[in-house]
């Protein structure tokens, strides 16, 4: 069994290495015709740019993606610079006609994205030519190996029950060397994905056939990410099924997050795209879905006919009605640990790291500051955007709409939710984003704290203060602090994953929805002590 497990690990690492190494493979260049047709397709008008690109990437030389990218970025930069000098020149000469003309030659866009578009066309080599084989060598081997590594646990873990043996002895789960390696890989992955997509253009080639089959177009880096996300959740979901096979709540919850990720976040938007509709994730609620009210999205929805209007109305009702009503009945868990994609990844890929969330009082303070700041940030951004959209201006109360959107997307959307939120799993636990950053979680938290039927009931005086519940709380709630006082846990940050209840060796905790009356039960003296003493204390 062990042998199978470790050969699985080996196979996984081979697939994983091929996938990583794919970045460095293949070569990139253009023929003159290819460049011409690209330029006309894009409608670039600058002769200067064309010349620069001709000089640098129309070649027989087999450029690596890094050389290719730097040449392309240099070409765009030189050309843009040239036109800027022209603009200032005409400006000085007060030659307004010429100056106005010159603007059309400037090309806007992030350098790496411009380069990505070219690279997608210019790429050659194994991953471009043999995408299906490449898929098997990367994803195929990776999935097969990972499953071989995970499935033997059905037997190796022994009888069903809580199996946390050795978590604090192993490098991978105890912030050891392996954990730091994983952190670096994840951070690197997100940096490249968000900021240097051209470097991973080879990955997109692997998915061109699958993407074409699904939505009729070639794969982008976001398609790769979406597919990878689902794959990881499925494989690590298998691990959850085995680890918690005695716990029906965990089994059903895992099934639910997998379903919503694969069907709602991945398949439906792809299919909608193939039908020429805007691809929309029906479960993604504002303000987590922070660009829902951005101009481009509103415009695109308005231009999409009935379905666009439906999405617009649905998105608003989801946030304003469905989300809070559901939180009232079931707690925010219905979203955060049953439906949400970020939560889904945290509950599958992130499960081995859940114990690393900081339980200190200071961390709780930081949490409340940060998450509420992000909520305010997202709301201010949306107000500015909407005001500008309807009034046709470009700023509101001195805040430039474009600036605030870009800042939010960069700081919160990319760095906080992605690079830090997922990248830091192995060291700071699997809910860094959900706990400290997610504006939707902050909103749901208010509802859960003040108007909800959900609570974690503490079972009288049974707690022995062992600390398992607090340690394995991914949201950093010091569950024990409540349980040992016989107090129910009613906290805005609880996502209802149910692990505290699962790991408690004394059957103390139960997640449940019940009447609001009696939900919060301040008790100074625990059940079990005689009645007079309880009365005495309760009178005070």
């Amino acid at each position, binding site marked *: 069994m062990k042998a199978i497990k470790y050969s699985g690990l080996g196979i996984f690492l081979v697939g994983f290495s091929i996938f990583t190494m794919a970045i460095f493979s293949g070569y990139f260049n253009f023929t003159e015709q290819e460049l011409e047709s690209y330029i006309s397709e894009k409608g670039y008008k600058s002769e200067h740019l064309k010349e620069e690109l001709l000089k640098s990437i129309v070649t027989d030389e087999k450029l690596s993606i890094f050389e290719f990218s730097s040449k392309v970025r240099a070409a765009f930069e030189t050309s843009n610079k040239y036109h800027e000098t022209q603009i200032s020149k005409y400006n000085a000469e007060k030659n307004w006609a010429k100056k106005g003309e010159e603007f059309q030659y400037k090309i806007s866009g992030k350098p790496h994205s411009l380069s990505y578009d070219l690279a997608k066309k210019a790429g050659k080599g194994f991953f471009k030519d043999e995408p299906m084989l490449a898929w098997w060598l990367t994803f195929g081997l990776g999935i097969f190996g990972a499953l071989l590594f995970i499935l033997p646990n059905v037997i190796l873990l*022994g*009888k*069903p*029950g*809580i199996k*946390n*043996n*050795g*978590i*604090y*002895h*192993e490098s991978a789960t105890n912030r050891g060397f392996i954990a730091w390696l994983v952190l670096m890989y994840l951070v690197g992955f997100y940096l490249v994905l968000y900021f240097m997509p051209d470097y991973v253009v080879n990955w997109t080639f692997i998915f061109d056939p699958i993407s074409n089959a699904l939505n009729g177009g070639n794969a982008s880096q976001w398609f790769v990410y979406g597919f990878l996300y689902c794959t990881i959740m499925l494989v690590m979901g298998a691990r959850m099924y085995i680890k918690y096979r*005695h*716990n*029906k*709540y965990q089994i*059903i919850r895992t099934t639910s997050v997998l379903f919503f990720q694969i069907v709602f976040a991945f398949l439906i938007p792809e299919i909608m795209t193939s039908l020429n509709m805007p691809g929309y994730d029906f479960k993604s609620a504002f303000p987590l879905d922070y660009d829902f009210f951005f101009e481009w999205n509103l415009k695109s929805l308005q231009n999409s006919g009935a379905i666009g209007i439906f999405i617009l109305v649905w998105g608003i009702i989801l946030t304003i009605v469905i989300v809070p009503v559901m939180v009232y009945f079931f707690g925010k868990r219905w979203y955060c640990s049953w439906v949400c994609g970020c939560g889904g990844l945290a509950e599958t890929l992130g499960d081995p790291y859940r114990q690393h969330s900081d339980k*200190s*009082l200071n961390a709780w303070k930081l949490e409340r500051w940060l998450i509420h700041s992000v909520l305010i940030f997202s709301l201010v951004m949306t107000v500015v955007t909407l005001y500008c959209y309807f009034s046709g201006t470009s700023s509101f109360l001195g805040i430039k709409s474009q600036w605030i959107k870009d800042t939010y997307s960069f700081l919160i959307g990319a760095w906080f939710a992605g690079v830090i939120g997922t990248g830091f799993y192995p060291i700071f636990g699997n809910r860094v984003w959900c706990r400290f950053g997610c504006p939707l979680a902050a909103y749901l938290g208010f509802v859960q704290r003040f108007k909800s039927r959900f609570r974690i*009931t503490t*079972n*009288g*005086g*049974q707690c*022995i*203060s*062992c*600390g*398992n519940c*607090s*340690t394995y709380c991914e949201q950093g709630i010091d569950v*024990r*602090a409540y349980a*040992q006082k016989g107090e129910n846990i009613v906290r805005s940050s609880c996502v209802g994953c*149910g692990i505290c*209840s*699962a*790991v408690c*060796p*004394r*059957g103390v905790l*139960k*997640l*449940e929805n*019940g*009447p609001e*009356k*009696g939900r919060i*039960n301040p008790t*100074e*003296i*625990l*059940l*079990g*002590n*005689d*009645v*007079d*003493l309880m009365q*005495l204390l309760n009178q005070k």
Partner: protein
Amino acid sequence: MEHIVIIGNGIAGVTAARHIRKKSNKKITIISGESKYFFSRTALMYVYMGHLKFEHTQPYENWFWKKNNIELKEGFVTNVNTDKNQLIFSDNSTLFYDKLIIATGSKPNKFGWKGQDLKGVMGLYHKQDLENLEKYAPNKEVCKRAVIVGGGLIGIELAEMLRSRKIPVTFLVRETSFWNSVLPTQESEMINKHILEHHIDLRLNTNLKEIISDENGQVKSVIIEGTNEEIPCNVVGLTAGVSPNIDFLKNTNITCNKGVLVNRFLETNIPTIYAIGDCAEQQHPIGNRRPIEAVWYTGRMMGETVAQTICGKKTEYKPGHWFNSAKFLDIEYQTYGWVFSEKTKSENEDHFQWQHASQNKCITISFDKNTHEFLGINTFGIRMRHEIFDQWLSEKKSVEHVLEYLADANFDPEFYKSHETEIVAKFNQEMCTNIQVKKKSWKRIFSKA
């Protein structure tokens, strides 16, 4: 300002200190010879098993004590001068107190076995025992086999710990079935089976004769009484119960029996001295409870009670209905009220039992044969609501009532399969009744709230 000194920073001592602080601004000092900060002894096993780090067993962050103005003193008390209100420490220093609370807990029993003090022989009680275990049983290469002597709650925990590192374990149990002085046969037998499923070499009806040393004064093997079988091993765990840790009181005027004798106000014979927790012995047992109760929550309740008395509200220690819980490897156990084993139960205690056909789940409900008053329940593999049973016991409900409303008491996580219908069907069949299971009702559950 009155100086309250507490010897022992376990659950009893710490609870007393916290509640005294809530009610007063008296000066409070807690003394411990074991560790500076309070930790949960019950979680020691999880540290060895790698579920927790030691720091996770500490229920309060380190700043808590200073913030609440509770002084922590590390040191070992060797004597108490009750005339001068003075504690004497092992380094001969002294400390004056106005009121003293003795909360020194327990120590593992040793019954004078030959070799019981060899290297590699240990109990499982103190933090130092854990360090010892890390030293002598870090893995299965260093410790080729461990022998555990004494089949109680701590013994089975130690077995689980060692098995988590794949160390072969032989488990010597004096009784004919695991813990059957407490558990009814059905349950004891289920645990026997479960122990074997975990590949633990369970030896029922077996006593230790002596422990053999190698040339370095370390354990080499144990000899079994009767058969004289020799079992080679590197570690011996002595888990045959605990007794009050009060040797340091031998030369004082404080009256002790097995533990420090206290009245219902937790007062000793010396007016300024109180005793709580594992080390306290009630002069007269309370109800069916034993005079010394070495469990977590009674220590906590005594701490809560003594704090009232010390702060001027003289309060009697009145533990409510008995309850407890434990975990036997993968099987959770809870009990509310009194269920005695066949060996110990009284004439009028009758049992209704149910066991799951394939899973490790069973219950025993005890009731009065004549009046049908519900006396208590043992549940294995099913969690139950403490509050509901507490209420039923106080209201002296009948066994029929308990079965009818059993669904209200279920505390298993959501979506778990419930077994009330099967259980009640069995009861109906055995008792010729016609009880219909009532659906769970929030209204009833929260009727007290």
